[in-house]
């Protein structure tokens, strides 16, 4: 479903701030894979996701989604293949527009936007049912502005928007990091549910090792712009946080730096 071949990206090339962010990343995902990604700060996790999403062009390598070479496509054209949820709950939704308008925008991802009405009566009914599934009471507030929602509600809505048009690949960039623990758990449960129901191929970055182990069927660890560990379904079932910490020390030669990952 996804193939990353030898991806290189260096920021601020030739300046004092030069930073090799991705250093020859190779990764192949099969259909239905749910991969969790962990790694220290600056390991290249978000950079890899941004490379896939086309936030900027990569320096070298190739990105294939479902066999299509998308390396040369800008972000808005790649969007037809991708569902995305961001770390900041403000990023994924449009605050000044209504809940149903946001959903309608998302349901037209990858389609031509013409002069027909932005949202149909049939759609509204459909959205109402979907919002009920979120169990956040949003189905009664369809015409409320999204800016009035809490961070957790916005993240749940973004998740729904990302999967409204079934994406070839769902990219979750620490989408629960800005939420309180209770809300984060709820959004993660919702993530599992939506991914399972739609059999979505998913990449989820997290700082939380327990979440990384508990979710998905595959786990990769990144360090210094490369994938240093790739754990498959069988091994992952038996994995513990201690194992992971040990492995991290082994591959990186340093202790895991983020307290959040240990405490979370």
């Amino acid at each position, binding site marked *: 479903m996804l193939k990353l071949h030898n991806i290189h990206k260096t920021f601020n090339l030739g300046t004092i701030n030069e930073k090799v962010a991705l250093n020859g990343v190779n990764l192949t995902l099969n259909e239905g894979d749910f991969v969790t990604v962990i790694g220290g700060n600056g390991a290249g996790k978000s950079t890899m996701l941004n490379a896939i999403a086309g936030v900027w062009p990569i320096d070298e390598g190739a990105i294939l989604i479902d066999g299509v070479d998308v390396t040369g496509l800008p*972000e808005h054209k790649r969007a037809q293949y991708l569902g995305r949820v961001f770390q900041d709950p*403000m990023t994924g939704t449009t605050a000044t*527009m209504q809940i149903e308008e946001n959903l309608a*925008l998302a349901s037209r991802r990858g389609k031509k936007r013409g002069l027909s009405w932005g949202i149909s009566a049939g759609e509204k009914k459909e959205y109402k049912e979907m919002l009920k599934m979120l169990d956040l009471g949003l189905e009664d507030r369809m015409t409320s502005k999204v800016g009035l929602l809490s961070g957790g509600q916005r993240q749940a809505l973004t998740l729904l928007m990302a999967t409204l048009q079934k994406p070839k690949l769902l990219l979750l960039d620490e989408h629960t990091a800005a939420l309180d623990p209770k809300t984060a758990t709820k959004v993660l449960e919702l993530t599992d549910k939506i991914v399972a129901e739609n059999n979505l191929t998913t990449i989820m970055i997290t700082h939380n090792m327990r979440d990384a182990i508990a979710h998905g069927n595959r786990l990769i660890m990144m360090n210094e712009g490369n994938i240093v560990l790739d754990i498959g379904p069988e091994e992952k079932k038996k994995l513990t946080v201690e194992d992971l910490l040990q492995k991290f020390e082994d591959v990186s030669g340093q202790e895991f730096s983020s307290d959040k990952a240990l405490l979370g």
Partner: protein
Amino acid sequence: MFFNYMVALNPIAFVNALPSNIAQGLVWGVMALGLYITFRLLDFADLTVDGSLATGGAVTVMLTTSGCNVWVALLVATLAGMAAGLCTGVLHTRFGIPPILAGILTQIALFSVNLHILDGSNKAISVDKYALILSSRNVTAAIITGLIFCGVLIAIMYWYFGTEQGSAIRATGCNPAMSKAQGIDNDNMKLIALCLSNGLVAMSGGLLSQFQGFADVNMGRGAIVIGLAAIIIGEVFCDSVLGKKANFAMRLSFVVIGAIIYYVVIGIVIWLRMDPNDLKLFTAVIVAVFLAVPYLRAQQKNSFKMAGKKSALALKELEKQEKKEV
């Protein structure tokens, strides 16, 4: 002396001038509707409008005086305004020039273009010779025409910004990261919005030149400030009258009402014998005040000064209690 001044103010003169102010407000309402697209929906302060307003006036007058049907002339003027908007859009989206600078560049270029169109710095058009759409000669008819124009445009805008494309433009203006992730080409949305906006501004210029009976290369000077005044005054009134319930069509209607209020206020200060040379200064002050008030109110509720005062009081209380305990 004050007494003499008061006596010299003739209420009838004010009442007589009122319809003309309202008609002018309606014509500028069209301009304010155009500016609303960029300023509010796209979040793009577009200074092109000072130039495209005059372009609209110039094209309308020159085409009409050379024998063209006045409606066709107005249509061509609108298209010319759209071309101006496209220039600004291309400068910004294709060449990476910041919005304000891109607008200024087009605006200053249009000054030369407008001089060429007018073949001079101004050109008169007489309602006696040409079948104009509106004229200050017949103010009642001008008001009705202005109302029809604004009403139709509000209806069209209400429809358009509810369509898939219009929604995409609004998303681009509010959250470009989100709209990109949803597959919206932000650059193209900006181009479309700038075209539509400047098209309306030029249409307003075309109507204005007919209303006043001439086009002038300087007729757009400070247009953006007048348009902003209309938008902001309209929004303040809309919020106080309708509160949060106002839908998009109502908000647009209040933008036009804002333009009318602005010209009535201008009528009042002229009636009060303010030096006409001070009008632009006055406009700038009005807009600055209306922009500053919401900010200052928010500051008042949430300022270090206030926090400092409260902390001083709290510390005093604490001191008293400690003394008592001793």
